[in-house]
């Protein structure tokens, strides 16, 4: 009998596992896939290391910062700041056809850029900042509400509104078109006020630290252990049945599988409202270059591009992918320690919005062909905004909504989960809880904080 069974060995499940095992609970983390990480994972192909999932750790604050989610999670998990080996970004860009805004870690550069390029909006931007700072992210009642309504009441230049929304929606908005104001404030702080960083060794370093700590505290991790159903008796969860038929008993269950996906596993539920599942899924086209991107004149960490003055955040309606907007990331372009040197290869990753239904309906042969076709279109679209690197590509890979679905088991390969978040982590069963993207926090740091806070609220107080 486990004290807590955790479904999913991603950031949130592993973080929750560490908290519970640290306080002497008997905990088991179950993972359907053959490896850890979920959305934020990694693999090796053709002798090279690849990351999947996010381009950057957001919420980066420097060593010694005592406020903010990164400091909070380090204390809660008893890690030292150095354990995550985070190197800050060089600098990033929001690129629209006629205007570009540069930003770095901390607000200074963005404020200067807005003052220079939108001088009439300087005061309005300060008013917006005041609203964001006033937002209390622990008060769930404030979370909903239209970000577009708040922005158009504050800022009178529609182009600046679109340019601010572009990176924040790209990095964590599960809702199409508009964004919950609470989510906007969380994303604004994590990207514009805190910032981007990355470990030289990639996301695997953070994941391996989490797993090592979890196991050293006596936690059990079972890979290739998909949950076939959650057993329910007298209105309570009593355990799980694995795909293999093996049964595990638990006093409570914490699931990072997603809201719809978790409820569907429960024996007592016969129908779920699949319309609640998220719609926003992506492809990512990865190019390995024969040079460091800097040698080709490209030193940006992340570029959020959009090819008109209006930013469209929606699932494509007429094609496999939407070529109007995307995100370009180069893991080479961080300020790594001199002792680390450069990454072995130049890498450029480009993300586009994709229609998961169209991707999943393809036959195996069509799928291979469409991957090639959309890789080419994606790169052609992106090089409108950065130096053309196509003559230097020595290897490529691509992931699609199908890949995301396989790694995360989320309906529609929805990267940021369902639009309606379950901020308190509760479900229809008193001892079944949610953590991870559908609880509400996104990003690497957000997911870890989600696991910690739900473990604290529901699994440690008794």
């Amino acid at each position, binding site marked *: 009998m486990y004290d807590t069974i955790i479904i999913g060995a991603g950031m949130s499940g592993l973080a929750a596992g560490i908290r519970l095992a*640290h*306080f002497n609970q008997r905990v088991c983390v179950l993972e359907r896939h053959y490896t850890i990480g979920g959305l934020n994972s990694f693999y090796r192909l053709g002798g090279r290391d690849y990351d999947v999932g996010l381009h950057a750790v957001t919420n980066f604050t420097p060593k*010694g910062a*005592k406020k903010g989610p990164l400091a*909070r999670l380090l*204390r*809660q998990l008893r890690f030292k700041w150095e354990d995550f080996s985070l190197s800050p970004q060089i600098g990033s860009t929001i690129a629209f056809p006629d205007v570009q805004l540069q930003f770095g870690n901390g607000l200074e550069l963005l404020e200067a850029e807005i003052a220079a390029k939108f001088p009439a909006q300087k005061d309005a931007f300060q008013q917006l900042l005041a609203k964001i700072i006033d937002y209390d992210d622990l008060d769930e009642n404030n979370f909903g509400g239209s970000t577009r309504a708040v922005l158009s009441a504050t800022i009178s230049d529609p182009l600046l509104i679109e340019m601010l929304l572009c990176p924040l929606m790209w990095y964590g908005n599960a809702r199409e078109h508009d964004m919950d104001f609470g989510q906007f404030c969380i994303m604004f702080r994590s990207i514009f006020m805190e910032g981007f960083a990355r470990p030289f060794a990639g996301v695997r370093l953070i994941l391996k630290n989490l797993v090592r700590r979890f196991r050293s505290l006596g936690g059990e991790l079972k890979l290739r252990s998909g949950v076939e159903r959650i057993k329910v008796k007298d209105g309570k969860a009593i355990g799980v049945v694995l795909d293999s038929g093996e049964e595990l008993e638990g006093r409570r269950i914490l699931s990072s599988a997603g809201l719809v996906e978790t409820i569907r596993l429960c024996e007592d539920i016969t129908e779920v409202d699949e319309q609640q599942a998220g719609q926003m899924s992506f492809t990512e086209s990865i190019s390995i270059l024969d040079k460091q991107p800097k040698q080709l004149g490209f030193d940006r960490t992340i570029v959020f591009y959009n090819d008109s003055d209006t930013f469209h955040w929606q699932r494509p309606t007429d094609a496999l992918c939407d070529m109007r907007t995307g995100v370009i990331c180069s893991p080479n372009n961080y300020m790594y320690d001199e002792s680390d040197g450069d990454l072995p290869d130049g890498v450029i990753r480009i993300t586009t919005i994709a229609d998961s239904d169209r991707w999943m309906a393809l036959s195996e042969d069509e799928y291979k062909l469409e991957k090639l076709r959309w890789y080419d279109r994606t790169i052609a679209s992106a090089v409108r905004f950065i130096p053309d690197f196509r003559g230097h590509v020595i290897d490529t890979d691509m992931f699609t909504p199908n890949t995301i679905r396989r790694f995360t088991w989320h309906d529609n390969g929805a990267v940021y989960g369902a639009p309606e978040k379950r901020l308190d982590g509760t479900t229809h069963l008193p001892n079944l809880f949610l953590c991870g993207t559908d609880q509400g926090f996104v990003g690497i740091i957000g997911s870890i904080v989600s696991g910690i806070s739900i473990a*604290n609220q529901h699994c*440690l107080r008794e």
Partner: protein
Amino acid sequence: MTPAEIRDEILDILEDIAPDEDLGDLKDEVAFREQLELDSMDFLDIVMELRKRHRVQVPEEDYGQLASMQSTVTYLTPLMKDLQKA
């Protein structure tokens, strides 16, 4: 444990929770919140560590007793007087 030993134990827990804080200048009569950057999650951790290390249960309605070092030691003295220092 004597009050002095309980104080040492609380310091040890605080070091564990907030390794970057300088606890040398901690004023016993001033609230932790005013001297250290502790949030509600950290306060829960003091309670959890007491339970883990010493099997001392602090009920939720008594969390306010843990506001400063002085009040914490006063509150814990009767609960921990029969425990041996590890």
